[in-house]
């Protein structure tokens, strides 16, 4: 077994036989043709054939990889039909008294060198296109159909791959690409991304690998040749999981989150930063049910400014394009410590100075965040959620501060969503038990099951010794959830779950029966939960 490092362009795992793709087409010879006019005519005819081929490839690519990625073959047609290319070939044939093959090869090299010498990455990458079109004409001139495409599913290894080479291969036979050259901007990379197969570049490939078994790990950027049994078994399992996920993704993307008896559920995703939004969209969540704003505080050496926060919230709201984005105000303290807050050491931090308790005692920090949130609400569908509530009094205080901040923005003429939804997290037994009263004060409830479980059972969730009694399905917790839903509905507001329990498929049906209106789970769990919702009934 041997491992080789490369740069991963597309993530994922592939296992298969190594196929070494080479472009050996025989050497181009410099010859002196008998008839220069006939040589020029040969070139013209070959060029026409090449243009026809490109037309066909364009049509094929259009169907397989979409217009945006097929456009390159239209460009190749333009380049080949271009005066510069033709003039250069004809000129070399005439002035150097040489054969068409030599003139085409020289032209391809010259133009490719010209682009390779350019500074800009985009133009630099066009060198491959010049090579590609000249090789196509050469192929026609030399009468060679290039028949070294794989006949069975393989991991394709090559020095480099031209876009026309990859598109002509039967996609069913491509498990992965591994090349020595190429860049993450190259067309091969784009195609690999489009086909969603793992691809590596920058690997020191060797011809001897041909026919051996290989594993491409696009998550770690490694190629394994001749894996041992344990490694193979490990990757077979990963591959199986990957297949299941893909199948699920394909089948459930775009489907509604609706129970068998027709209740629509808000199926949202949890995120911890701007970078997580791509996964939310990829997994087709219908919104963000918990945007943990802590990252802004944890990644910073000092309190993040209103502007810094505004930028992050606005970006997420815009990326979600009108879908709901529920942002939780800072939840620092307990297991999330930040030095500049100077919170001091506590004997019992889980029950200590944290989250909304900090916000209400240090309203300046709170106001800065609220201003940023409200300003961002002008750019999308934002809702605000307050954590660690235990009393009506806290909610009243929050509402007073929120009102003051809104009035301030209004007087400054700064736009914000005046109907912004404001809800609270139900994560203490106290809040769950008085949820009938709290429901009258807010727009929604989101149940944080991690803390609710730890506080209800009095079991520290970070103590490994207590794992056996940290029963996440404890009847007490489930009853509290049911109570919260009932009280929410009585007051005409919705209730959701944003803790780990929300993605527990064993409980999905039970949650539906309890009347849970929203589930916010990590992105990778969205589609499995969707599947379960669609198989559940509320009655």
């Amino acid at each position, binding site marked *: 077994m041997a491992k080789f490092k490369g740069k991963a362009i597309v993530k994922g795992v592939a296992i298969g036989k190594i196929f070494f793709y080479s472009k050996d087409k025989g050497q181009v010879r410099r010859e002196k043709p008998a008839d220069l006019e006939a040589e020029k005519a040969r070139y013209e005819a070959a060029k026409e054939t090449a243009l026809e081929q490109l037309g066909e490839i364009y049509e094929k690519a259009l169907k397989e990889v979409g217009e945006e990625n097929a456009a390159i073959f239209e460009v190749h047609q*333009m*380049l080949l039909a*271009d005066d510069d290319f033709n003039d250069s070939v004809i000129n070399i044939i005439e002035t150097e008294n040489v054969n068409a093959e030599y003139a085409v090869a020289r032209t391809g090299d010259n*133009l490719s060198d010209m682009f390779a010498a350019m500074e800009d990455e*985009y133009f630099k990458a066009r060198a491959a296109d010049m090579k590609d079109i000249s090789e196509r004409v050469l192929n026609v001139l030399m009468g060679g159909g290039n028949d070294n495409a794989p006949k069975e599913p393989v991991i394709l290894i090559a020095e480099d791959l031209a876009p026309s080479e990859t598109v002509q291969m039967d996609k069913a036979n491509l498990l992965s690409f591994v090349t020595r050259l190429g860049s993450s901007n190259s067309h091969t990379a784009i195609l690999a991304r489009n086909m969603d197969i793992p691809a590596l570049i920058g690997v020191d490939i060797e011809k001897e690998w041909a026919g051996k078994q290989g594993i491409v790990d696009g998550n770690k950027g490694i190629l394994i040749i001749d894996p041992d049994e344990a490694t193979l078994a490990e990757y077979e399992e990963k591959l199986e999981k990957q297949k299941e996920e893909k199948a699920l993704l394909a089948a459930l993307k775009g489907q509604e989150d609706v129970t068998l008896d027709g209740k629509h559920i808000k199926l949202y995703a949890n995120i911890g930063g701007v970078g997580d939004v791509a996964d939310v969209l990829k997994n087709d969540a219908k919104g963000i049910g918990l945007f943990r704003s802590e990252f802004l505080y944890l990644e910073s050496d000092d309190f993040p400014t209103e502007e810094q926060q505004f930028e992050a919230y606005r970006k997420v709201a815009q990326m979600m394009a009108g879908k709901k984005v529920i942002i939780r105000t800072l939840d620092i303290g307990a297991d999330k410590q930040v030095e500049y807050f100077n919170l001091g050491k506590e004997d019992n931090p889980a029950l200590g100075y944290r989250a909304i308790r900090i916000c209400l005692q240090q309203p300046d920090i709170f106001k800065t965040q609220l201003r940023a949130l409200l300003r961002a609400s002008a750019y999308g569908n934002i809702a605000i959620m307050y954590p660690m509530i235990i009393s009506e009094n806290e909610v009243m205080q929050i509402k007073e501060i929120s009102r003051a901040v809104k009035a301030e923005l209004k007087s400054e003429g700064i736009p914000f969503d005046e109907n912004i939804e404001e809800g609270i997290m139900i994560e203490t037994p106290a809040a769950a038990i008085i949820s009938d009263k709290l429901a009258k004060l807010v727009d929604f409830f989101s149940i944080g099951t991690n803390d609710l479980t730890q506080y209800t059972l009095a079991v520290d969730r970070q103590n490994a010794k207590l794992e056996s009694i940290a029963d996440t399905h404890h009847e007490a917790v489930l009853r509290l959830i049911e109570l919260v839903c009932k009280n929410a509905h009585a007051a005409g507001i919705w209730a959701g779950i944003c803790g780990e329990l929300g993605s527990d498929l064993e409980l999905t049906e039970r949650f539906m029966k309890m009347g849970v209106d929203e589930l916010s789970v990590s992105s990778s769990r969205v589609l499995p939960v969707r599947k379960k919702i669609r198989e559940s009934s509320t009655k």
Partner: protein
Amino acid sequence: MKSFTYKITDPVGIHARPAGLLAKAAKASGSKVTIEANGKSADASKLIALMGLGIKCGQEIVVSIDGGDEANAVDVLEKFFKDNL
């Protein structure tokens, strides 16, 4: 001869596809169209030469039109740049 200046707004600059379209438009205009940038110039009807200028986003270029229906060509090309680049 007529000319105008234009500032490229396409994030990739004059890349392959619009360059191809520009070459077509330049040929169709019946005038000789020259693009100047970075102290170099190229015949706009020649795609590879055009791309060889390596014109990037934010760069200012001078488009000159010589011969044929110059006034019409200016209108057509100005619109082309605004729409595509």
